[in-house]
């Protein structure tokens, strides 16, 4: 789907499937379908945790040639996202960034920025302005 859009994609990664899906719902409410969006929550069994394979699939699902911004909650989500980006492989891995930003606010503000056609660098910078 994403090849048609030039907008940056957004991926949400949480230890909790409910948190990830809830934030995705909030993002969707804000920007509708004009931003490629996917989430990964929980481990391979759907319990609290993270899943590198699931994150990889989410990146693929939200893929945009403009790049993908990932939002993570806690440690394992970040480490597993880095792993997923590596597995995505070059050259696409160069167009994926993990944002150092609060999960809810970061994802929503990044999506708003992305919906206006901003570059990956701009989307990431805008979200990261929220970090203390």
């Amino acid at each position, binding site marked *: 789907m994403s090849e048609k859009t030039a907008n940056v994609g957004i991926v949400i990664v949480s*230890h909790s499937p409910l948190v990830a899906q809830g934030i995705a719902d909030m993002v969707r409410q804000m920007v509708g379908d004009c931003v490629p969006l996917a989430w990964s929550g929980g*481990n*391979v*069994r759907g*319990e*609290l*945790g*993270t*899943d*590198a*394979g699931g994150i990889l699939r989410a990146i693929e699902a939200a893929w945009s040639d403009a790049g993908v911004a990932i939002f993570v909650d*806690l*440690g*394992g989500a970040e*480490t*597993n996202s*880095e*792993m997923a980006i590596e597995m995505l492989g070059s050259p696409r891995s160069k167009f994926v960034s993990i944002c150092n930003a609060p999960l809810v606010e970061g994802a929503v503000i990044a999506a708003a920025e992305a919906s206006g056609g901003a570059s990956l660098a701009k989307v990431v910078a805008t979200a990261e302005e929220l970090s203390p």
Partner: protein
Amino acid sequence: MQGESVLVAGLIEACRVTIAANRDHLCELDREIGDGDHGTNMQRGCEAVSAEEKDLARLPLPDALEKIGLTLVMNIGGAAGPLYGTLLMEMGRKLRNRDREEEFPVVLKQAIDAVARRGRAHAGDKTLLDVLYPVHDALAQRSPLTDVARRAELSADLTAPMKAMRGRASYLGDRSIGHVDPGASSCALLTTAICRYLQENYPE
């Protein structure tokens, strides 16, 4: 090749057994300073590797190690997945590309350094690195396997007085002091199981 396949299968089983036997203990350690799932996560990873044991045992050692690493990444489901996964994947890659002169401790050191980069952690941060580095030192000094295992266990215990600098335990600050790090503990258990298996089946 035959020898390698028996070795790989034996080590996979030895690791699976020790993690299964210590699952609750690892969860207990993790409940003290983390989210309480390290034992179940490690067990899930080991079971997934065991399920692939027949295929893995057919591969040359470097390929087997790399594939085990990937399976751990895909199944552990916490930060331990990428950390243990990186260790094994890097070991596999380095073994495949090593100079003939290069000995195993050199390969191991490169793999441990990759784990440190992945976790952005250093020695003394109260992580599995605090077991991996001493294990490497012991191997580099050509210590007998009994001593390597003892060094691993002692090193895990020595994480208790450390203050966690990485991972969820770091959120506790000083309150992380006084608890053994779960990752260091699983790393010592695996090291001990591997050493014991090698001693029993490949006496020095």
